[in-house]
């Protein structure tokens, strides 16, 4: 670590300035730096709120403990959904968009005032909704606020404020890229990571517009201006927002995966075309997946559901399966080129397992794909959804995607943002080394506990399932697995927040001296540019191990998917 680097104006006499990062050689716009810090801080604050709620509601559903009363359980469940699914992740993504549209392009932030406006609106909306849920008993309506359940008008207003703020920030992303292109800050195509973030940003635009279509009428309805609001129509628009919002997370997370892989193992994408096509598949087909939530709703035809939920033929799933190959394959090639050539998996054994960026990437990919992806495609199948709708299998699925996948990756990425953008030394490095394993491991138990409970019919969003009197004894076991997993995951979350706070609140600001946190003095990011075509194409360096891994994945996928059809075939006849 060295003294702070000097800043340079972008143009002679201009107020806007930048610094050059000594580690990555990239130019960092000072507006961007401040915007990233502000968004990251709000992300961590909302994570803390939602995480506290997570602990308390998990300890309530763990039947042996059953901590909260019903009122507080439902209230904190509402809070948990909003803070985690929306606030924490979107704040982090906004930081990512500022980063991707300026720093990675060596460009300036072209619309800082607009970006601050967006940030302020998001902050006001995000904090307001917490207040409304905590202090207004009527507003315990869950994250989904299904009409005709009616919350306080301020509840809807804070959703709208947050969403418009996010939309404004997304617009600054496009402005930045357009200006960077015009000012010739970069040559040729966008870097792959920015391309992925661009996919997320485009998805975000229509996600937020559909959110407006759902929430604005609900706001008017709560004020009494609109008399009737059809619950079926609300569901349609709400999920046009609710599910794509998670797909924004998916695209942003995959972009971060590529970034983490390059920063920790020095990858070069094995084929830019392949990876970019996979992102384009998301762009065109993933929004159709919103229909997942309406599979057992009245009023919709089989054809509509089947076309939509299959993403017009599972083409978005294909996109994810392409990334699932291309990222580990790129790591394998880069590792083999370094000489880790022994056997099928020598490259994996010699990976930097102590480096949080790599372990976070690994845990995130495994949990997202093997648990989240497989269960998601399965319960999103039209007929199979009848077995799963609104049971704990649903939160089991999305805790694997959003918590085990997105959140683990974002947490790991934060450890690099602190020295490179906050310009603070990362404290508690030995904690950071373990944190992805603790958090990811806990999340695996949470997901598996929820999924196995849901398979036995346990409903989600239910304070006490024993009222139903149909709960087999094994449910006590599976709910306990969920509860213990939650304790471990929350421990991982506390480790994360402690590391972040200890780093940013103590010690002087200074320039980072190296990229890796525990893995040594190397700089994989810069070394990745030295990988030659000959090395990439050398027969000895081909990703044979990855091919074995993805085929193993496919076998597991098929087993889980087909056994669900078998389960469905055993239930009552229904049409």
């Amino acid at each position, binding site marked *: 670590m060295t003294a702070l680097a000097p800043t340079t104006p972008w143009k002679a006499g201009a107020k806007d300035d930048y610094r050059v990062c000594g580690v990555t050689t990239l130019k960092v716009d000072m507006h961007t730096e401040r915007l990233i810090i502000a968004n990251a801080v709000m992300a961590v604050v909302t994570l803390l709120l939602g995480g506290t709620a997570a602990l308390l509601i998990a300890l309530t559903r763990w039947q042996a403990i059953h901590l909260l009363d019903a009122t507080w359980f439902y209230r904190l469940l509402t809070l948990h959904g909003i803070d985690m699914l929306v606030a924490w992740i979107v704040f982090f993504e906004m930081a990512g968009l500022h980063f991707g549209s300026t720093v990675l392009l060596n460009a300036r932030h072209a619309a800082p005032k607009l970006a601050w406006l967006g940030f302020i609106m998001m902050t006001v909306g995000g904090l307001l909704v917490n207040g409304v849920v905590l202090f207004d008993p009527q507003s315990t309506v869950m994250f989904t606020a299904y009409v005709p*359940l009616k919350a306080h008008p301020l509840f809807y207003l804070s959703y709208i404020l947050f969403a418009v703020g996010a939309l404004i920030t997304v617009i600054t992303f496009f402005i930045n890229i357009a200006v960077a292109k015009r000012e010739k800050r970069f040559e040729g195509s966008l870097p792959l990571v920015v391309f992925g973030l661009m996919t997320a940003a485009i998805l975000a635009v229509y996600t937020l517009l559909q959110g407006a279509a759902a929430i604005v009428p609900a706001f008017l309805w709560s004020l009494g201006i609109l008399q009737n609001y059809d619950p079926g129509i609300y569901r349609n628009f709400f999920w046009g927002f609710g599910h794509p919002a998670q797909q924004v997370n998916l695209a942003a997370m995959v972009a971060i995966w590529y970034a983490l892989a390059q920063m920790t193992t020095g990858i070069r994408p094995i084929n830019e075309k392949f990876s970019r096509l996979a992102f384009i598949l998301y762009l065109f087909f993933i929004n159709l997946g919103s229909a997942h939530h309406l599979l057992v709703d009245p009023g919709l035809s089989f054809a509509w559901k089947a076309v939509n939920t299959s993403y017009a033929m599972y083409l978005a799933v294909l996109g994810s399966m392409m990334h699932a*190959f291309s990222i580990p394959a790129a790591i394998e090639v880069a590792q083999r080129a370094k000489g880790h050539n022994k056997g099928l998996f020598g490259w994996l054994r010699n990976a930097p397992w102590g480096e949080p960026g790599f372990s976070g990437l690994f845990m995130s990919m495994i949990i997202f794909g093997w648990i989240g992806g497989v269960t998601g495609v399965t319960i999103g199948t039209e*007929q199979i959804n*009848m077995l*799963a*709708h609104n049971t704990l299998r649903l939160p089991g699925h999305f805790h694997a995607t959003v918590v085990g996948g997105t959140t683990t990756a974002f947490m790991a990425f934060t450890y690099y943002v602190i020295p490179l953008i906050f310009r603070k030394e990362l404290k508690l490095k030995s904690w950071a080394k373990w944190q992805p394993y603790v958090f990811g491991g806990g999340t695996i138990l949470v997901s598996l506990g929820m999924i196995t409970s849901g398979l036995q*019919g346990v409903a*989600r969003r239910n304070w006490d399932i024993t009222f139903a009197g*149909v709960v087999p004894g094994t449910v006590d076991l599976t709910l306990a697995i969920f509860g213990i997993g939650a304790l471990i995951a929350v421990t991982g979350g506390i480790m994360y927040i402690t590391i972040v706070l200890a780093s940013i609140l103590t010690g002087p600001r200074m320039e980072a001296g190296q990229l890796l946190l525990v893995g040594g003095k190397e700089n994989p990011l810069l070394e990745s540019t030295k990988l030659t075509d000959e090395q990439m194409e050398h027969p000895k360096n081909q990703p044979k191990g990855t091919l074995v891994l993805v085929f193993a994945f496919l076998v597991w996928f098929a087993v889980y998917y087909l056994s669900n059809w078998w389960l469905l075939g055993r239930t*009552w006849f229904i049409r």
Partner: protein
Amino acid sequence: MLAPEKLWWKPLGRMEKTWLTVAFVWCVFLTVMMPLWYFYGKQNVPTETYRVTREQFAAKVNEFVTQYQVGDENGIPVVAPPPGSDVYLRASTWQWYPILQLEKGQTYRLHISSMDLQHGFSLQPVNINLQVIPGYDYVATIVPTSAGEFTIVCNEFCNLGHHTMVGKVIVK
């Protein structure tokens, strides 16, 4: 993270092609399974739906209960409709009304609707789950294939008493 080389549009390698083909074939299989099951499977998501007002549906439920009531359990009527008939089930906070008594292996047209909020029809331990929305009469043609007592759990949040909303189906 860094800008790619100028020309990155290159043909795919052998392994990428292999995986892409296999993954695509799997996606086609996933897609085909749904229409296949639609035509040959015995368990399909009901699609028959009618618009209905709360009053209309409540009247139908009452008429149905008067016609076929055979008993009473804690104030809730037990209703035994003949096989093949239209069966009505009313969801409201926090009650399923009435208790249904069906025969194993017979077909029924089960109408479900809500009087107030959205509810979730979750038949346990059979584990069939459907969304119940006010204003929509959702018709499921069902054949109970097992006998015994079954519970209807509400699995859509419907305010603070949600977890107490439990109903019953008896199959003889």
